[in-house]
C-alpha cells in the first residue's frame, strides 16, 4: 500500500492534478472562514459591476484630505473622463474642419484637446452636418471646458432648520484620501453578477456545492456500477444476462436525455442540489458496471480465487478479499472520472434551466446559466462567466490528470 502511494506520487501528471485539486479544495474550505457573507446576498443595486476596489464616496468626503502634487493628475483625469466615442467625434469634427487625418491621434489626450481648443468654432458651419449634430459638438465643447477647469468642487448640505443649502466643505483637485482611513471600502475581486451579488463569494460557494454534487453523483454511480459489475461478473448466469441487458440498454440511450426527462418530471420545487446529484448518479453508472464486470470475469477463475472457494469462504468474503483488492485501483479511477463528469452534467442541466432550484445555493452550472441569460458574454462582462468556466475546467482537468497519472502507474503499457 505504502509503496503504491509512493509510486503514484512519483507520477508528474498525478502530482500536478492533485496540487490543482487540493488548491481548489483549500480555497473552498478556508475562504468562508474569512468572508462570512452569505453567497447569495445581493450587494449591488444594478447589474455587472466590474471587478475592483469600491470606496464609499460619502465616507471619503469626510476623511482627512491630503494634498499631493502629482504632475500628471490633471491629464489622467481628463483622459479618464473622455470616452472613446467623444474622441472619435472630436476627430470627426477636426477632419471636417480641415485638419489632415494623419495629424490626429485619438489616444494622445493632451494633443487632441490642444487641437480641439485651437480649432473649434461653434459658429462655423460644416457642410452636410445636421443642426442636432452641431448642437452635440457645442455641448461636447462645454463639457470639455468643465473637465479642464482647475477649481475644486463644493460640498453642500441642506440645513434642516432654514431649509437652505449651506456650504460644508470644498474638495480641491489635489485632495487625496488614504483608502485605509475610509470607513467603508469593499474589494470585489470579481465584481458582481446580474443580481448584484459578489461573484467571488458566490463562486467559492458554488464550487463547494458543485463538488458535493459531483461527489454524491460519483459515489452513487460507482456504488451501483460496482455492485452490478461484481454481481454480473462473479455470479454470472441469469443474473449476468439480466444485468448486461439493462446495461446495454442504458449504454445506448443518451444519458443527457434521461437527465432532462427526469429533472423535468421532478418539477422545479422538488429539485434541490442533492436531488440533482442523485439523479445524475442514477443515470451514469453504466460504464463502471461494464468495466468492473469484464475485470471480474478475468479474475474469477484465477488460482487464488479458486483456492478461496475450495476453502469454503462465503461469496462476500471472496469478493471482499480476493477480488476487490485487484480492481480497487480501477474503481478509484472510475470514481474520479464520475465525479468530474457529474460536475459537467450538472452544468449542462443548469444551462438548460433544469438545474437545482435557484433560491438556496449557487452551483457552477447555475452561475453559467445566469450569466448566459443576462448576456454577459455578449456585453463583454467577462468576470461573470470566465471565472466560472475556468473553475469548471480546472476541476475536471485536475481530476483527469490524476486519473491519467494513476492509469500510467497501474497500467505499465501506457508509461512514457
Amino acid at each position, binding site marked *: 500500500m505504502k509503496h503504491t502511494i509512493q509510486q503514484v506520487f512519483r507520477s508528474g501528471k498525478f502530482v500536478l492534478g492533485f496540487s490543482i485539486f487540493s488548491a481548489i479544495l483549500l480555497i473552498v474550505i478556508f475562504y468562508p472562514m474569512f468572508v462570512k457573507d452569505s453567497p447569495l446576498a445581493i450587494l449591488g443595486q444594478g447589474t455587472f459591476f466590474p471587478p475592483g476596489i469600491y470606496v464609499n464616496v460619502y465616507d471619503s468626503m469626510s476623511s482627512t484630505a491630503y494634498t499631493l502634487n502629482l504632475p500628471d493628475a490633471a491629464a489622467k483625469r481628463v483622459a479618464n473622463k473622455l470616452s472613446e466615442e467623444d474622441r472619435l467625434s472630436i476627430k470627426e469634427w477636426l477632419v471636417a474642419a480641415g485638419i489632415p487625418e494623419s495629424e490626429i491621434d485619438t489616444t494622445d489626450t493632451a494633443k487632441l484637446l490642444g487641437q480641439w481648443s485651437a480649432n473649434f468654432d461653434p459658429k462655423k458651419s460644416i457642410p452636410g452636418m445636421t443642426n442636432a449634430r452641431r448642437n452635440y459638438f457645442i455641448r461636447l465643447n462645454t463639457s470639455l471646458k468643465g473637465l479642464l477647469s482647475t477649481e475644486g468642487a463644493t460640498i453642500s448640505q441642506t440645513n434642516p432648520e432654514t431649509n437652505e443649502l449651506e456650504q460644508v466643505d470644498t474638495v480641491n483637485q489635489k485632495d487625496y484620501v488614504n483608502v485605509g482611513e475610509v470607513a467603508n471600502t469593499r474589494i470585489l475581486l470579481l465584481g458582481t453578477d446580474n443580481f448584484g451579488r459578489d461573484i467571488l463569494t458566490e463562486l467559492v460557494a458554488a464550487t463547494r456545492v458543485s463538488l458535493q454534487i459531483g461527489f454524491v453523483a460519483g459515489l452513487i454511480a460507482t456504488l451501483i456500477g460496482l455492485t452490478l459489475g461484481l454481481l454480473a461478473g462473479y455470479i454470472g448466469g441469469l443474473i449476468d444476462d439480466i444485468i448486461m441487458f439493462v446495461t*446495454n*440498454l442504458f*449504454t*445506448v*440511450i*443518451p*444519458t*443527457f*436525455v*434521461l437527465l*432532462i*426527462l*427526469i429533472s*423535468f*418530471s*421532478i*418539477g422545479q420545487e422538488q429539485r434541490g442540489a442533492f436531488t440533482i446529484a442523485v439523479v445524475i448518479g442514477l443515470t451514469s453508472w453504466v460504464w463502471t458496471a461494464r468495466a468492473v464486470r469484464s475485470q471480474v470475469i478475468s479474475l474469477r477463475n484465477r488460482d487464488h480465487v479458486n483456492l478461496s472457494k475450495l476453502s469454503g469462504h462465503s461469496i462476500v468474503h471472496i469478493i471482499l478479499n480476493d477480488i476487490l483488492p485487484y480492481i480497487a485501483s480501477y474503481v478509484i479511477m472510475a470514481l474520479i472520472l464520475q465525479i*468530474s463528469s457529474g460536475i*459537467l452534467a450538472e*452544468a*449542462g442541466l443548469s*444551462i*438548460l*434551466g*433544469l438545474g437545482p432550484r435557484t433560491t438556496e445555493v449557487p452551483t457552477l452550472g447555475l452561475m*453559467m446559466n445566469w450569466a*448566459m441569460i443576462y448576456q454577459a*458574454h*455578449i456585453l*463583454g462582462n*467577462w468576470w461573470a*462567466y470566465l471565472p466560472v*468556466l475556468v473553475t*469548471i*475546467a480546472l476541476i*475536471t*482537468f485536475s*481530476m*483527469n*490528470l490524476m486519473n*491519467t497519472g494513476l492509469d500510467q502507474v497501474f497500467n505499465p*503499457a*501506457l508509461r512514457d
Partner: protein
Amino acid sequence: MKSYLKYFLNKFGWFAITFVFAFLLNFILPRLMPGDPVAAIVARFAQGMSNTSGVQAIYEQYTELFGTDKPLLEQFFIYVRNVVRGDFGFSFSQYPRTVADVIRTSIWWTIALQFPAIIVGWIIGNTLGALAAYLKGGFDKILMPVSIFVSNFPAFGMAIILMVIFGVNLKWFPTSGGYGFDLIPNFSWDFIKSVIIHYQLPFWSIVIIAIGGQAIGMRSMSIYELNADYVKYSRFMGIKDSKIVGYVFRNAMLPQVTGLALSVGTMVGGALVAEIVFSYPGLGTTLLRAVLGQDYPLISASTLIITVMVLLANFIIEILYGFIDPRIKAAQSD
C-alpha cells in the same frame, strides 16, 4: 454473407429492443410527475384568458389528447397512436404551431451541424492521436496535455470562448442564430452565404471538443498496439515500418469505431448545449425554449427525436463496423 446477416439481425434486434425501452421511458418518466400534468399545462396555457368555458374547452382537448383520465395502459396506446401519426399536439410555448412542425424545422439544423462536426472531429482526433503515439517526443508532449484539457472542457464553455473571441471581439462571425436575422430562408446566394458564416463557430466548437477526447483514446490504443508482440515479431522479420504502422493503426482504429458508437450520445448531449449558446435554430435551442416555457409536449417529442437520432447513429456505426472488423469477416468464412 450468412453470418453477416446474423450479425445484422442481432444488432437490429438490439436496436429494436432499445428503441421500445427508450420509448417506454419517454412515456413513463413525465407521467411520474406529481399532480395532473394537463391541469398544469392548461393553467399555463390559459393565463390571461377570462373565458372559463374556453379554459374548460382547452382542458378537455388536452385531456383527450393525452388521455390522462384513462388508465395508464390505455394512455400508452393513445400515445403510441399519436406518435405513429406524427401528432404530438400543439406546442404551448409556440402556439399555434404544432410540435411536429417545430421539430420539423429544427431537426435539420441539428443534423446538418452535429453529424459533420462529430465525424470531422473524430477523423482529426484519431489522426492526431495516432501521430502522437507514433512520433512521441515533443509532439506528444504538447498534444497530450492540450487534448486532456480540451476534452475536459465543457462543450458550452468552448462555445462561449470561441464566441467571445471570434464573434464579440474580432467580429469575424455572428454571435447567434443560424442565418441573418434580416433574411427569410430561401435558396438565394445571400441566404446560403449567411448560413455558412453562421455555421462556423458552432461547428468548430463541437469539432474541437471531439478532437480532444478522440486523440486521447487513439493515442493509448496505438501505444498499446505498438507494444504488442506481433509488432515486435514483424520488426524481427524485417517488415517495413510503414507497413507495420498500417496494421497497427487499423487495429487501433476498431475500438475507436465502437467508442464512437458508444460516445455519440454524450457528444450529442454536449453539442445540444453548445447550440443553445449560439441560439442555433436546432433541437438544443428548441429544447431550451420548451423547458423555459414548461412546454411539456415539445420536451417529450424533442427527447424522443434525439433518442431516435442517437440510436440510429449507433445502429449505423455498428453496421459499418461489421464490414470493417476482420473478426466478423473471418466468422463469415467459417
